[in-house]
């Protein structure tokens, strides 16, 4: 485990785009494709996010939770996971989900209020977004516990915010994970606000990481806008988990550049100067781009063509989501239980009578109310 003093933060890539000495070693260990992947995913995630905000403004999706500014935390951590790992996201982890294999169209469908957006393709171990804060944490811990009991090498990761650390579920999950040495990663994106409430109002400790230590789990504070450091710290924690070393709490210090959701107005509670510093001086994507450009791995043409390629993919996802046929109203009943009890079958009938046939096409008995 990395030795840290309380407020230290692992940082390999400085905001100015230069590597630290430690960072040079880690960077040197990556292949050209791995390096480019870090950047490419961040760009795709950002373009998707911006498009989603526009779609909301156009009334084509519902309220949306933007992640701009948190790309490095999400991309760096998600790329350090394996296909067999279980991911328990919150509602802001679109970047993580897409890297884990969730189709972009599903992510959009979710924000269109469509439950199909929650379904993962075969083999993709991503749970639906957890909306009640911190509730995913005990479940990720339980999934990790099952992996351990079954002697499988998969781990589980829970994503959550700084506000979540005030919830009981955070503490219960950390405690169990410490007691049972479970292969679970608790990945906190400390974006410093829970809607309008700053972390100083959330906690009397100035870091999240020190809370993990109280539960006997290794805890690391990392620059969450440094994709290389996040990737490396997460990969190390994952390896430790797979080797029986138990849980890790990772605090990725980052910043939500936009509002909490499209229904929120962050200018009501944040100092514009604070926002400016994070946007102009600490942006995660710029930082990585500068490094890659200097290393000769990125050209302007490459960037332009990659952005085009992402935009095309996003457009296809928008089209697919908007084309996806809405299920009939009776779909409400489809998955409440494996087999519907008689009382629910009757309620379903009531809906069929109102809507017409099961597909809404024709009313079998128009006289019936």
């Amino acid at each position, binding site marked *: 485990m990395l030795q840290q003093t309380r407020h230290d933060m692992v940082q390999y890539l400085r905001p100015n785009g230069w590597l630290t000495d430690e960072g040079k070693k880690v960077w040197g260990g990556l292949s050209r494709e791995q390096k480019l992947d870090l950047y490419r995913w961040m760009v795709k995630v950002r373009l998707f996010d911006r498009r989603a905000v526009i779609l909301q403004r156009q009334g084509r999706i519902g309220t949306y939770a933007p992640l701009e500014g948190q790309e490095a935390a999400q991309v760096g951590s998600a790329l350090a996971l394996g296909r067999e790992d*279980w991911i*328990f996201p919150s509602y802001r982890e679109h970047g993580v989900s897409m890297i884990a294999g969730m189709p972009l169209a599903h992510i959009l469908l979710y924000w269109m209020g469509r*439950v*199909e957006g*929650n*379904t*993962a393709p075969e083999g993709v171990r991503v*749970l*639906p977004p957890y909306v*009640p804060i911190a*509730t995913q*944490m*005990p*479940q*990720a*811990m*339980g*999934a*990790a*516990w*099952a*992996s351990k*009991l*079954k002697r499988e090498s*998969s781990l*589980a990761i829970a994503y959550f915010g700084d506000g979540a650390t005030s919830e*009981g*579920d955070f503490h*219960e*999950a950390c*405690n*169990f994970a410490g*007691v049972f040495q479970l292969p679970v990663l608790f990945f906190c994106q400390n974006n410093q606000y829970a809607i309008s409430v700053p972390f100083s109002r959330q906690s009397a400790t100035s870091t999240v990481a020190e809370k993990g230590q109280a539960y006997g789990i290794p805890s690391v504070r990392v620059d969450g806008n440094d994709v290389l450091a996040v990737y490396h710290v997460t990969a190390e924690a994952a390896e430790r988990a797979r080797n029986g070393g138990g849980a890790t709490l990772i605090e990725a210090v980052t910043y939500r550049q936009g509002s909490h959701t499209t229904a929120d107005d962050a200018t009501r509670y944040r100092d514009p100067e604070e926002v400016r510093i994070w946007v102009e001086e600490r942006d995660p994507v710029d930082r990585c781009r500068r490094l890659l450009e200097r290393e000769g791995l990125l050209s302007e043409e490459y960037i332009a063509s990659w952005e085009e390629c992402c935009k095309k993919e996003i457009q296809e996802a928008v089209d697919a989501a908007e084309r996806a046929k809405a299920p009939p109203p009776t779909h409400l009943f*489809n*998955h*409440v*239980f*494996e087999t519907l*009890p*008689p*009382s*629910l079958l009757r309620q379903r009938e009531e809906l069929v009578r109102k809507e017409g046939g099961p597909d809404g096409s024709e009313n079998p008995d128009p006289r019936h109310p």
Partner: protein
Amino acid sequence: MAVKTLIQGIHDGMREALRQDLRVVVLGEDVGKNGGVFRATEGLWQEFGEERVMDTPLAEAGIVGAAIGMAVNGLRPIAEIQFMGFIYPAFEQIVTHAARLRTRTQGQHPASLVIRAPYGGGIRAPELHSDSTESLFVHIPGLKVVVPSTPADAKGLLLAAVKDPDPVIYLEPMQIYRSVKGEVPDGWHEVPLGKARVLREGEDVTLITWGAMVPLAEKCAQAWAGRGISCEVIDVRSLYPLDEETIIASVKKTGRVVIVHEAPKTAGLGAELTALINEQAFLWLEAPITRVTGFDVPVPMFALENAFRPDQERVDRAISYVTSF
């Protein structure tokens, strides 16, 4: 078959489940070496080891949340909550997640798990140990709720719950843990969820009840038989889904209904049963459906427990009301 107590039936069910299904794990507070505070898991830790029967930290949301995660990742957990009065920290995990993970994931993650909890009064337990809040769970779409009142049903419902792909809340009437005895079938024995038990046939009044109130209803039925009134006694045992068929058939036969439950009256399951009968057997009724329930007051400390819970006198009065209406 051997004669056993209700809690032995529960124990046998868990033991059988642990034996036959390697995915089954038991977790909760004090369930390991100590065998549970009521001894429901007695000897299971010793027999199956600490990877199948697990003492957890004292944290109900953690226990149920872990159980959901385990279910997602292929296990079949049986989580014990030490008393129903202490299930509320886990309420969010149950209501928000266990109940609807199947719907939310369109069947990908059905959250197949069992949550056991001793419930109800009658044992002079310390303050806040005697809640009977089954209707909170019955109200939540996506959950099944069962209550055994015989040792055979205790085993049979438990094994059916373990096998059932949906989350099941399995409530144990602790007052009759040891006072009720009966034969329990050996081996894997299931009692289907959604089927009530008619423990006594009758013509004049239908007594509908469950849990620790079943012996009380039986006693009242016996007393009234001596006075020439025959009561049919139904142990609902599956609070969700309800066995509407059995209940409605009985009401159509007798035309008079007394519902007895320990939980407070307002929005208790008796209200739902009343509405159900109203919807399906209104024209067969000879008297208003009558409820004998706990009062709408916080469950008292045990000095006043008997004043709170339904007793023979109140049930008798209800029977005489519906038969003389």
